[in-house]
């Protein structure tokens, strides 16, 4: 697959079209102006789907979007405050472990029984832990919607937290953490987050935890975390698909809506702790690596920052899509990578902005230097009008794709709920993007992603890449082992 990311729209970068010669095969067509791209026809106006907002008896918010095209439905339950940011210090991975155990036996059904029942119903229930929230995703046939709701209700409200299952899952997770050294991309991100926020802080530790801490987690701690942080009164359930809102609410009120646990705590505001810029080179030596995994990042913006739209236009121009500057330069021009992109982890507090790529080993230093140049250019020079328009239209015209499936629609509304944005938010999204000017983009590039504040994490063969990296003028390096843990010099 050729997909990656990138884009340089600088004037002159286009190769002139080769004129069709006299005996061109194109002479057989009746089209005389082949070289001219056809004009688009009149653009349709897109209206995002509208959710119906209801509330269950216990205060849980319910958002329903009806779609009867196929006999299926998707649900997403957002549990704010049950994410990894709530892990107590020294207990990294507790939130994710707790969420993981919910479907290892619940409501009188065994762990394997729950899996068998999902298959029998043609349903699938997944539980994921993010930083600011835990998320339960359900996909089901509409004919088995009710039993699927019963099943997910058992999982969320009456997890067994059986000791035998606890020990088994902990064993699996410890093994997975033992094997982390085999996953260099994960290690690169972990090292970057630790450098940006502090290794033991809410946003600075890995969601899945650190092996040595994880081993010490107890069943009591899991139960206490569940009791304190899985609070129906702050949750939102989004249901999209072939459902009837009235019947659905009635059904839910008999189970999820009747769930009123004691002992929940109010959600603590996340304290993100951006670190002072320390050593800017964070390195992991991985001998014989064919490529270097590169992460260049800093603490970006939070989701409700008023500069969100300008930032998204900037990010798209820089590193989202094949025409973005990173892909055009590093892949299409230099041919030193399969892809490169820029992502912003939008959170309640400012999260990680990162440029990510894997560069063939001998060209690592050269590639990193190009990333810096690309960032600097965006911060000092206006994006040309045609490129700016391309980025903006790319975002605006891709909006419908956010609602292409029930699951995607559920995700879109779940994000609004997590960030306390209004249900009507997407209706004004295109207007927000349209307002962004070249000046806005340059200004946000300068203010929010200056290369001078970036931390550079590189996992690769240091015997081959270190000399070039040292020439970048980033100062001393902090070294880490293959698990991403700091090593003494």
């Amino acid at each position: 697959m050729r997909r990656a990311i990138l884009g340089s729209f600088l004037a002159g970068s286009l190769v002139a079209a080769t004129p069709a010669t006299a005996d061109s095969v194109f002479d057989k067509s009746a089209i005389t102006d082949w070289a001219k791209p056809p004009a688009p026809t009149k653009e349709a106006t897109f209206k995002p789907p509208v959710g119906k907002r209801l509330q269950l008896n216990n205060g849980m918010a319910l958002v329903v979007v009806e779609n009867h095209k196929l006999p299926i439905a998707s649900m997403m339950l957002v549990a704010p405050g049950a994410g990894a940011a709530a892990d107590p210090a020294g207990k990294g991975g507790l939130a994710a472990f707790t969420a993981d155990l919910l479907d290892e036996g619940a409501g009188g059904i065994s762990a394997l029984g729950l899996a068998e029942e999902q298959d029998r119903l043609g349903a699938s229930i997944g539980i994921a832990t993010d930083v600011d929230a835990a998320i339960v995703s359900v996909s089901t046939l509409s004919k088995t919607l009710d039993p699927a709701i019963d099943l997910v209700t058992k999982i969320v409200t009456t997890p067994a937290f059986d000791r035998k299952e606890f020990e088994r899952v902990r064993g699996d997770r410890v093994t997975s953490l033992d094997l982390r050294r085999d996953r260099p991309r994960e290690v690169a991100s972990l090292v970057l987050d630790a450098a940006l926020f502090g290794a033991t802080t809410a946003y600075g530790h890995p969601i899945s935890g650190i092996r040595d801490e994880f081993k010490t987690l107890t069943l009591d701690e899991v139960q206490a975390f569940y009791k304190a942080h899985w609070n129906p009164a702050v949750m939102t359930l989004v249901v999209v698909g072939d459902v009837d809102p009235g019947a659905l609410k009635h059904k839910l009120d008999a189970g999820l809506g009747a769930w009123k646990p004691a002992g929940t705590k109010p959600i603590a505001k996340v304290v993100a702790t951006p670190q002072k810029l320390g050593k800017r080179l964070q390195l992991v030596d991985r001998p014989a690596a064919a490529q270097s995994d590169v992460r260049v990042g800093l603490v970006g913006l939070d989701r409700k920052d008023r500069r969100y739209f300008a930032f998204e236009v900037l990010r798209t121009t820089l590193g989202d899509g094949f025409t973005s500057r990173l892909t055009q330069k590093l892949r299409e021009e230099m041919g030193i990578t399969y892809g490169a992109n820029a992502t912003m982890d939008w959170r309640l507090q400012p999260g990680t902005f990162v440029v990510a790529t894997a560069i063939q080993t001998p060209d690592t230093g050269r590639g990193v230097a190009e990333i810096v140049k690309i960032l600097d250019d965006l911060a000092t020079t206006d994006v040309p009008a045609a490129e700016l328009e391309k980025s903006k239209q790319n975002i605006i015209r891709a909006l419908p794709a956010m609602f292409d499936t029930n699951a995607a629609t559920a995700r879109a509304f779940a994000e609004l709920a997590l960030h306390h944005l209004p249900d009507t938010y997407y209706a004004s999204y295109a207007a927000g993007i349209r307002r962004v000017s070249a000046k806005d983009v340059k200004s946000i590039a300068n203010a929010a992603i200056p290369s001078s504040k970036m931390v550079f994490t590189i996992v690769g063969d240091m015997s081959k890449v270190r000399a070039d990296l040292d020439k970048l003028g980033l100062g001393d390096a902090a070294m880490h082992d293959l698990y991403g843990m700091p090593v003494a010099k």
Partner: protein
Amino acid sequence: MTRLTLVLAIALLGQVATAHAEARAEPKIVYEKFELTNGLHVYVIEDHKSPTVYEVLWFKVGSKDEVANRTGFAHLFEHLMFKGSAHLPDGLMDKLLEGAGGWSNAFTSSDMTVYQNVAAANFLETVLWIDADRLAGLLDTFDKAKLDNQRDVVLNERRQSYENRPYGMAELVIQDHLWPKDHGYHWSTIGYPADLKAATVPDVAAFFKNYYVPNNATLVIAGDIKLADAKRLTEKYFAWIPRAAEPARPQYKLPAPITKEIVVKTTDDVQVPRVYLAWRAPASFSAEEPASELAAAILGDGKSSRLYKRLVYEEKIAQDVQASFGGEQLAGTFQIVATAKPGVDPQRLIKEITEEVAKLSSTPPEAVELERALNSHEASFLNGLEPTLQRAILLASYDVMAKDPAYFSKDLARFRAVTTAAVRDVAASYLKPTSRVVLTISPGKKVVEK
């Protein structure tokens, strides 16, 4: 790399059915078909749920259609097709499509190369113009610079997707042993680096001229468009392109069966061993494909499967286990993969997997196991119909692989017809200990040849 996506698409699409769904009307794929005089098959799916158009152009050429010492060409084209053509300067198509809120991508497998364009629906004509220009005029601007550049990108794709990934070489090693040297499934889609490096402009151009012809392709246009417009514009941009000779391609006989277990051992820079058991299996859309898929589900797909229960849940000797079946045009592959827990001898994993396969080969599964597998398939199938693009790819696969665009209803029926005895029978016929390749990757030095 592209194989991954393909497997995903087929996994989502190629599945069906349930024991208790007979009463309900089945969803239909509604489409119109027409064929141009140059042999191009065209399908139109009108779906007005959102103002987007999806275009799929499927060429019947994959890595099996390459010849020895010239591997990786089919996939290389998947890259070169984005580097400009007669009237499309390099980079313009991505600018047009991304500026239209869309994107463009492709995947390659042993049998096919499938291009996808997505854009706001009012760019329908732009999309067709792009693909007609690529088909009729790719070679007009093809040169050594483009070849060199995309070869570098492909070699990096190989590093990222295979060489620099834990256990990443397994897929290539298995193919290498499962199929004899003179069979088109012997080499991987990504190709051998030496062949890629040796590729010349005339070699590559000849490959294109042979396979990239309208009578070797199927076009599907789906989304918020009108049939009449799609028809008129398809005629305008594609109908004039001359029909060409049917592509000359290597013909493969079914290779002699493997009669003695092939044991392969290699090492990688990893912490724990992983074992792979692989067999040749039925082809896609063959009579035994549904039972093969269901056998894989019962053996090792998810937490309710037999291998998960035994190796991961009860005995805790494996960190993970997965059985899968993938059908391709000439034959399929059935594979079981398990990662050892630290300290566990990989031979024990192989022994216990062998026992479970033997059990399924001698005794039909419980009815309830088959019911679970079928219902999961129905759910995957219906969920796979939801994204418009995926529906378009499914329709193209019916046209090309099943040679029957109306295959949808038959696809459901063939899964529902599977009996527990049929599951046992495919296991007995195909999953013999003597006909398998067993690969063990142990901790050690990374090996990237092949």
